[in-house]
């Protein structure tokens, strides 16, 4: 009954997405393994570009700017680029620092969620 493997959006085959294993990831983040600043980027932080990519920009940065003309979560960027979420987080921190993207933080974590928020989610689910 399993739905099988989900489609892999990082490409139909070789030559798409970002390849090359850990060394490649090391290169695209210039050796940083995590964001330098504790910018609170969550898997579901929504990212929106503030402008078009500049000439000479690192391709990964440019790709993120192009795909975030509408809001897109960090984890969706990870799926579409084929880069790990941890790597995307580093790349996004560069763009946040440079003022090139706007972030829309998740609903703040709390001991217990706001009942109003839960009611909104239930209303939304009922429409499914």
């Amino acid at each position, binding site marked *: 009954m399993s739905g099988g493997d989900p489609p892999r959006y990082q490409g139909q085959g070789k030559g798409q997405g970002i390849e090359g294993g850990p060394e490649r990831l090391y290169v695209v983040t210039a050796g940083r*393994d995590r964001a330098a600043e504790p910018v609170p980027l969550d898997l579901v932080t929504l990212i929106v570009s503030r402008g078009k990519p500049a000439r000479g920009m690192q391709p990964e940065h440019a*790709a993120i700017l192009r795909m975030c003309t509408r809001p897109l979560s960090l*984890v969706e960027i990870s*799926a579409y680029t084929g880069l790990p979420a941890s790597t995307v987080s580093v790349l996004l921190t560069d763009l946040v620092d440079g003022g090139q993207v706007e972030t829309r933080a998740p609903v703040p974590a709390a001991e217990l969620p706001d009942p109003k928020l*839960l009611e909104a989610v239930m209303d939304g689910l009922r429409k*499914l």
Partner: protein
Amino acid sequence: MDFANSEAAAGPQAGDALPASARSAVKVVVVGGFGVGKTTLVGAVSEIRPLTTEETMTQAGAGVDSLVGAEHKTETTVAMDFGRISIDERLVLYLFGTPGQERFWFLWKGLFEGALGAVVLIDTRRLEISFSVVNRLEERGVPFVIAVNNFPDSPCHPMSDIRAALDLPDHVPMVTCDARDRSSSRDVLMALMRYLHSLTTAPRSDSD
């Protein structure tokens, strides 16, 4: 090979883009063993086809360590599938289908932090996998409901037997579902939301 011209890096198709008005997102984690139907459930309710995010794990099991000096470690790629539901013009719900083994949970920083709660998807043919999941979530204080995925050849256990087998507190809701079915999977999420809502409005019993 060329990332800049790669179709894969183009992002979502027009129909999969969120409205510009989307302001904020919330998470629900669907936890379960391999083959229990996590991605099926996520796909049944998601407005986009489930996507996959991957992280690299070193064989040492240290999680997301620095890759520097990792030349002699074996790298394993771990995948996690997720889907999305636009709740309204401003709010988005993300659903993550996560392996039951706790060591995978740390690969995605913040997976459980800030999550509204979790669904533990259970296959009664392999109940034993679920013990540790239930324990780990309780330790972390993540509220959860149990959803029993009804496979055609599943033995038919009364819910009370499953509750006893998992040593589950009385207040944790249990539902049965067909993870292939949209409304059935939606009802699982509704059960979680109702439970969370009850936790916010009723005083929590701290007896257990």
